[in-house]
């Protein structure tokens, strides 16, 4: 706990910018060299060609459309997964009968990865939105549920005991102690789940879809339009970073106190 901040602090802010600048420029250069000297550029397009393809796809409106489709699938599945995972995780962490009832399924299905469900989901729900949203939901629900469950059962005993001294009833204990004490775990679970949702949506769109970033990547690959394929991958990574930043910004604005300022 102590060592990391000190290590980080030993690099001044200006150096941090410089080091990441060198890293980024170095990576692009390596990419450029690799794509011109080592690998045929049809297999690995140059950074410039990839960016040109990206610009063209933005102009054509392909990229905004596909990105929008993927993002809305993620958003819907993620929200439903959170809406189910949080209450169920709370109930499992707080009430033993609920835990005993649901735990075997949670323990079993968390080892069956979302990709294993792609085919059944398409068979059951078709190639439309429902199958993708189902997969994102599946990805989200276990991560959020398990984190919530662990969090709510790890509330320090003295926090509960002192509230009971003050005369808090079960609802006050839940709303004013257990729930806020669990918030960091819930938010951590959500953040991890969002990252995994990006992976899940691409997997689903690979197999059967008519739109979405996964579809864009595999479709471009089929036609050997590797510059468009890499542009799709670039977009995916950037959107992921953006979504994570957005999530953190919302947390910092609305829920900072749950990350226990120190």
């Amino acid at each position, binding site marked *: 706990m102590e060592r990391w901040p000190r290590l980080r602090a030993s690099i001044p802010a200006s150096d941090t910018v410089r080091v990441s600048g060198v890293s980024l420029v170095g990576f692009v250069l390596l990419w450029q060299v690799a794509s011109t000297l080592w690998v045929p550029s049809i297999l690995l397009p140059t950074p410039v060609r990839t960016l040109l393809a990206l610009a063209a796809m933005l102009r054509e409106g392909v990229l905004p459309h596909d990105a929008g489709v993927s993002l809305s699938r993620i958003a819907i599945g993620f929200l439903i997964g959170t809406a189910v995972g949080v209450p169920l995780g709370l109930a499992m962490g707080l009430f033993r009968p609920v835990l005993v009832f649901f735990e075997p399924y949670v323990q079993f299905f968390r080892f069956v990865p979302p990709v294993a469900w792609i085919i059944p989901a398409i068979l059951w729900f078709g190639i439309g939105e429902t199958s993708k949203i189902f997969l994102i939901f599946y990805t989200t629900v276990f991560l959020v549920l398990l984190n919530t469950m662990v969090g709510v059962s790890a509330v320090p005993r003295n926090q509960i005991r002192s509230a009971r001294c003050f005369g808090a009833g079960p609802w006050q204990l839940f709303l004013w102690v257990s729930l806020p004490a669990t918030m960091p775990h819930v938010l951590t679970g959500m953040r991890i789940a969002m990252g995994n949702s990006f992976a899940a949506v691409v997997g689903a769109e690979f197999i059967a879809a008519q739109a979405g970033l996964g579809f864009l990547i595999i479709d471009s690959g089929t036609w050997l339009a590797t510059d468009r394929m890499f542009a799709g991958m670039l977009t995916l990574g950037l959107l992921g970073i953006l979504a994570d930043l957005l999530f953190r910004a919302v947390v910092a604005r609305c829920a900072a106190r749950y990350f*226990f*300022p120190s």
Partner: protein
Amino acid sequence: MAYITFRGIDFRYGAQGPLIIRGFGLEMRRGEFFTLVGPSGCGKTTVLNILAGFEAPSAGEVVVDGEPVRGPQRDRIVIFQEPDSLYPWLTALENVEFPLRVLGVSPSARRTRAREALQLVGLHGHEGKHPGQLSGGMKQRVQLARALVLEAPVLLMDEPFGALDAQTRIILQEELVQIAGRTRQTILFITHDLHEAIFLADRIGVMTAGPDSAIKKIVEVELPRPRVRGSAAFGELYERIHQILSEEVRRVLRREDSLL
């Protein structure tokens, strides 16, 4: 007439566990500062938890002001050794407001009372800080303020200064003596530090080594306050209680030796 009575308390974990406490009896007067000392593992904290209502005795009963203890209640507030009973997502002020919020006091009234309580423990100017931003001593002051804000008749303190450095500890002991003198609360204070016990208490109960421990001897501390740690009378009393206590500590050590 005793204010708090422990009558024939036995305590064991579960139905078959070994007896931690056997036949523990104690009468506390209203407004007295009672300190419980004893070898570690003798069940001091268990006694406090039973009075707090966190644990139910296997036999016997505890009566506070004529009412048998059935669970935690607002008239008996615990101050824990670890400051983890504070709510880290709340500021110092909000932590102290918490008991009043449970009680249903209006926001403006509870804010005023919480501010006063923080002022009383010397935390004026730190109201907006979160527990993670406060030192160990300051966190214990917040715990104290949070206990004082309800004006509960009984305070239960479980080695509250045990994790603090020596200097902070002495300062907090002096402040506690002043506050206790003013509020006239009945205090059960647990410690294994004999200096602390003599400095604070009206009476000191020395417990026998566990398992199946009880009170071995109760010593009245008749030194006038403020007490001077270096004084001859303080030293004499220390020696007297130390004799009683060290017999028990030696019993623990002998038993541990024979186990090896």
